[in-house]
């Protein structure tokens, strides 16, 4: 991302009401399972994360993370 774009982004984030779009890579056995049980227990959290299930966080290639940022993710969450 070019320097001015980064600044623009930071500016945007500083504004109130900024809602980051986060892409999550969740391990099937732990984080994905935990996210399911959060649902079963009806815990509430903000709807900003979109989830890609993987069988292990070991599956996550660095290219995936870079690609996520390139495709507009404000953050990448890996849970394993």
């Amino acid at each position, binding site marked *: 991302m070019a320097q001015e774009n980064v600044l623009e982004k930071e500016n945007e984030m500083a504004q109130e009401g900024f809602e980051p*779009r986060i892409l999550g890579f969740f391990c099937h056995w732990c984080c994905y*399972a935990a996210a*399911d049980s959060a649902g079963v227990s009806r815990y*509430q*959290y903000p709807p900003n994360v*979109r989830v890609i299930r993987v069988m*292990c966080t070991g599956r996550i290639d660095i290219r995936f993370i870079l*690609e996520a940022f390139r*495709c507009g*993710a404000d953050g990448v969450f890996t849970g394993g």
Partner: protein
Amino acid sequence: MCTMYCPRPVVDTYNERLDITRAPHIDYAQAIPSSYYIDARACLRVNYETCNLCAQTCTAGAIDFTEQPKELVLNVGAVVLAPGFGRVDEKVLEKFGYGRYPDVLTAFEFERLTCASGPSEGHIVRPSDNRPPKKIAFLQCIGSRDETCGNGYCSSVCCMYAIKEASVAKEHEPDVDISIFFMDVRTMGKGFDDARKRAQQKYGINVVRARVPRVDEVDGRLALTWTTGDGEHHSGLFDMVVLSVGLESPEDAGLISQVADIELNHYNFCRTSVDAPLVSSRNGVLVAGAFQGPKDIPESVTQASGAAAIASELLADSRNSETVTVTYPDEDKSLEEEEPRIGVFVCHCGVNIAGVVDVKAVRDYAGTLPGVVLYEDTLYSCSQDALKSIAEKIKDNRLNRVVISACSPRTHEPLFQETLRSIGLNPALVEMANIRDQCAWVHAQEPERATEKAKDLVRMAVAKARLLAPLDQPTVDVTPTALVIGGGAAGMSAALSIADQGYNVVLVEKGRSLGGNLKRLTWTLDGQDASMVLKDMVEKVKAHKNIDVLTSAKVESVSGYVGNFTSTISRGGKTEMINHGVIVLATGGREYKPKGYAYGESTRVVTQLELEEKLSRGKGFLKNARNVVMIQCVGSRGEDMTHCSRLCCTQAVKNALKLKDLKPELNIFIFYRDMRTYGFYEDLYREARRKGVKFIRYTLVRKPEVIKQPRGIMVKAFDELIGDDIEIPASLVVLSAGISPGENEELSRIIKAPLTPEGFFLEAHAKLRPVEVAVDGVYLCGLAHGPKSLEESVAQAKAAAAKAAIPLAKGKVAVAPIVSRVNQDLCIGCGICESLCPFSAITLEKVGKRKKAQTITASCKGCGICASHCPTIAISMGGFTDEAIMAQIHAFSPEGCKEG
């Protein structure tokens, strides 16, 4: 709908009567079967032939009041009784103010209060005023260890559940003050003592050793009085009192006994014996769980598998005679190869999803996505009817990729995969979007944004679905032989069970003869001659045509995976190779060798097992004896080893009674920390007290001392009640030495089976997979798992035998298709994947001139570490290919994101 329209409120028994529901209802959202039922006792239609509202409002037409009870006659080869336990009579609880004071609850009621889906949504509140209590008291042994109500036994589980409930309460409300009133703290389960200590330290739960006789009300609060071990009287006011009620025999135990024609014991539980704990008095009728005696979840699960093993032994000749085999049509390969024709099914899950997410909007949105030819919404996608309809629609529209937008693939993917298989599509061609557990349920207050998220998840799932490829369903053949390591009571029981189920067993014992610790035992805890039990077992093992016994033998190495292990066994300087499909670890344990207490310095200081050996040779050694002192927890519970050795309390009491039998005038003193004579062993404890055995409690800070004197032995100890030291000249000091693990380290390394910090083997799941090990095809029983009685070892051995026989009975092991595959044209043989694989599932093999990586499909768990680290991108993961995950990432943005 039916629940909504029913005019008849009923108490919600699932929520321990703390809530109200209607006559037609479902106990809880995850209930199986997941259908509503009508409480016939309350229904107006059933009782007065009026109403009928529910039948009219049910859109599925599922309520039929003309249905009558039916009697079925089933022809079965065996019966397993697992009716569970009954509740303590409310009359017993009335003594503690239950029913009179609203803030006196049973632990079952309290459990519902702590539950997020319970009547108070997880808030702990007093029923009297709905306010959070500041001080809570838990009273133990309500309806247990209490002869006045007929329950002389210990319920075994209440100490632990009280600590759990107190911890959960502290997590909800950190400021609440909690005291638990114990007689003895009986946390003798595996890892329980440790967990109890952590709970005490982390949450600051007060442990009071006293029995509270009654509960009174003073100014709207609950008043308790109690007396501690030093004779002091105390009193205190509490806002809530929780009664840790015990487990009784089931209410219909009498009826079950009559119908099944089996004998009950004096407490109305099923009568069994130490060497056959899962067998009732009637041939072919087995028992498992709390009906055999009060017990916790892991033990119930263990007994359940054990009972299955015995049924399987009895009916081995009829195996597979009545099971139904599902057959599948051939896969339509040409359809699978066509351009993606995707069908999207968006599930309402009743109101679970549709109550938050705009399902119809998501459905219509799915229709705009490339490749989607069919988009529909369904009320319950997982219901039998819906599955049938989905299958038909897939066929009619010649779909070759399916997206189910519903709940979690963790729970429901197999179901939809099965649906695809049933109509000739490869099961790998379905993808799920989790819009319930990870969307509707967690964003209940934000329906619009939840709908947006659901659309995104569906878009990403569709993007992945376009790239899904059919995967092979690999299976590997199983060598029908089990390797049992350890020839003690557990190993022999497991070997006999597997052999009786019709499979070969190689039993490896490192010692010169079979028997293990059973060889040193004189009597079993129920008074049987231990040598007879041993002799019987050894003879059966030696005579069994399916069992090959190797003594003085050692397992040197194990390679392979479930179904196809190869082990090297060394024996008398020679080694032999054995092929087998499964492994049972029954390596046993040892009596702890005491340190201090003048052990080894005087012949008058012995361990319990040494005492038994003396006793088996007659009573001559007691001729001049006057005082016998027993010291509990030698080596256990933080003295040297951290764990509780579980059975030393009962063993001490058993031996004390034996001594009293031989010489009634003998004075016996038992120094203990908590007497843990759980279950029916409590009877022995009571008998010992009645016969004059003196029990004196000590703490780790003031341990009894054994002092060697010129003419004998003196035991000096602090007596809490007197408040001073006492001195006992002892003719004999018996140390209740704990149970230490065997030499498990080497085997743990060979098999890659993890150990606990104490050195016992670690089970795959403490509650639900108590006899399985994290490595597939390896099972666990006896002292190798942790301290336990002979009875428990035998039950656990049967359980391990059941689990071990499953792959043997199936003959094939299915391998999940989501494994890694190496494209050997791209592979440069660098070996990074081999070094990283946590399961040793990738090897380098010579192909032509160069080394190439190769996946051992049966060992691969599909984690994908190899794929993400391969420098040449030569490794692809079934179901999770680079392309598919990239497609999901690209679909993350609603506007799309082109390849860069």
